């Protein structure tokens, strides 16, 4: 693992990228790592591109934002366009395969650009509401900063009270996490 991992997660406001980022850095912090997360959005209540800048490291972290990410995850057409600027030669650029009309906006080589069917998997196999957890699983796998078990602990911390009321939700979320990781395993 590299000493510092920089992640830019972007989607439409309401898609849950900020929640995913929150769980991700919580898990990292609980594992004793340095973590920094900063949300970025405009004045609108809903809609608009919402970006989460996350950094996880073994050492003290510098500026809250960065020039180029190790991993970019873009979940809407606008997010793809907005986040192309964070892709550099070392970046893995992930986007949801269902997004259309962005063929000309995706960053070109040497950026590694990969489409993953996260939305489809969430809709067809799981539940649309766990789309962001699928993304969380994909992020974990793509960065390799933590194990799925460590993230499950963080999920438990955040959603444990809901899981208590409905244990099926736990199953669903864990499944979503694992499916997300598998999607990355298949393309990377």
């Amino acid at each position, binding site marked *: 693992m590299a000493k510092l991992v920089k992640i830019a997660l972007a989607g439409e406001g309401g898609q849950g990228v900020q929640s995913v980022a*929150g769980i991700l*850095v*919580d898990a990292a*912090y609980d594992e004793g790592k*340095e*973590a*920094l*997360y*900063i*949300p*970025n959005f*405009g*004045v609108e209540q809903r809609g608009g591109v919402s970006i989460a800048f996350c950094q996880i490291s073994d050492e003290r*972290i*510098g*500026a*809250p*934002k*960065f*020039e*180029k990410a190790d991993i970019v995850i873009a979940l809407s057409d606008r997010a793809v366009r907005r986040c192309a600027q964070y892709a550099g030669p070392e970046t893995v650029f992930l986007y949801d395969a269902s997004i259309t009309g962005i063929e000309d906006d995706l960053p070109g080589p040497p950026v590694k650009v990969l489409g993953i069917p996260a939305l489809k998997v969430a809709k067809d196999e799981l539940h649309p509401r766990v789309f962001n957890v699928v993304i969380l699983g994909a992020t974990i796998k793509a960065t390799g900063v933590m194990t799925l078990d460590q993230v499950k602990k963080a999920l438990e911390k955040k959603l444990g009270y809901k899981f208590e009321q409905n244990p099926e939700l736990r199953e669903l979320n864990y499944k979503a996490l694992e499916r997300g990781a598998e999607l990355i395993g298949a393309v990377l």
Partner: protein
Amino acid sequence: MAEKPIQGEKRVFMTGNEVVAWGALAAQADIMYGYPITPQNEIMHYWSRLAPKHGKKFLQTEDEISAGFTTIGGTIIGARAFTGTSGPGNTLMQEPMSMAEMYRVPAVFIIQQRGGPSTATVIYSQQEVTLTTFGGNGEGYRIVYSTATHQELFDYTIKAFNTAWKHRFPTFVLADGYQAKMREPLTIYDPEAKGIEMVPTVPTLGKEGVPGVDRPPVHMTNTRNTEEELYEVVKGLQAAYEEMWPEVEEHEAVECEDAEIIIVCHGVVTRSARVAVSQLREAGIKAGYFRPITLRPFPVEPMKQSIKGAKQLLMVESAQGQLARLVKDSIYGSTIPIEPMFRPGIGISSEEIVEKVQSLIK
């Protein structure tokens, strides 16, 4: 007395606004007055959630002018009081801030800078430096701490109350939208456990006893009748300000001794400068950084000392030269060339600084 909000010390992972609320609680603040504005809102949210559990109070006012004046009112009767604001709210609050200078009111203000002018962005900038240091009518008799990390945000929130109450000038913690919204680890603590004693608060008005009988009456006025009278008052304020200056000024100078190029920055940009300097040093470039922690009073002598061997200064800020104006005024007479790197309203990464320094060295 309610149980201490923090026992000993504790490692936490939270947003900067939450850090400020905990800092004020640890500093035994009695009350926050405030009016919502992004990116400062959550100071109020967290404070109003924490305060009742610890016997503290919160008052939401009708606007920022009122939030400023009520903070002064609370402070005058001896409450450890504070408020927080940002951007256009900071503009509105200048009148009470200026009154606090005239009355020597030890009120504490937390500023989370957003973009300007006007509504602009709710995200981030360093464009409230001029406003926070010299915003009122008058001479800027204020103390302004500019923080870079969540740890400093906690430390200086506590310190702001003590500096204010010891020296009786309005005191500011100047952070920004990034610091307000980002989450990072820090250690929060009970000041007493660290040997920090809170300076006791005393009422100016509403003291015990009958005025004129048991004690002399207190007469507060911010109105002066003649030019000469005002001149004496301002000269008195100036003398008091100059007296506390050396005790209060703070700075950080890193790798400046042998540096050929010194990055000058403040606040959150310091984080990028820190990373940049370590990368540049690894590449064999003699770089350092100087950072005023107090923007007011400015660490004039330490800065002159730190930069004297440098061949060039690189001024880096997320504003169009607001820090640069303070710096140039302070180092008047120095002939070291200054290269500006002004990025109004936008974040500055360590990569950009490294690139700029490398282009200057060539």
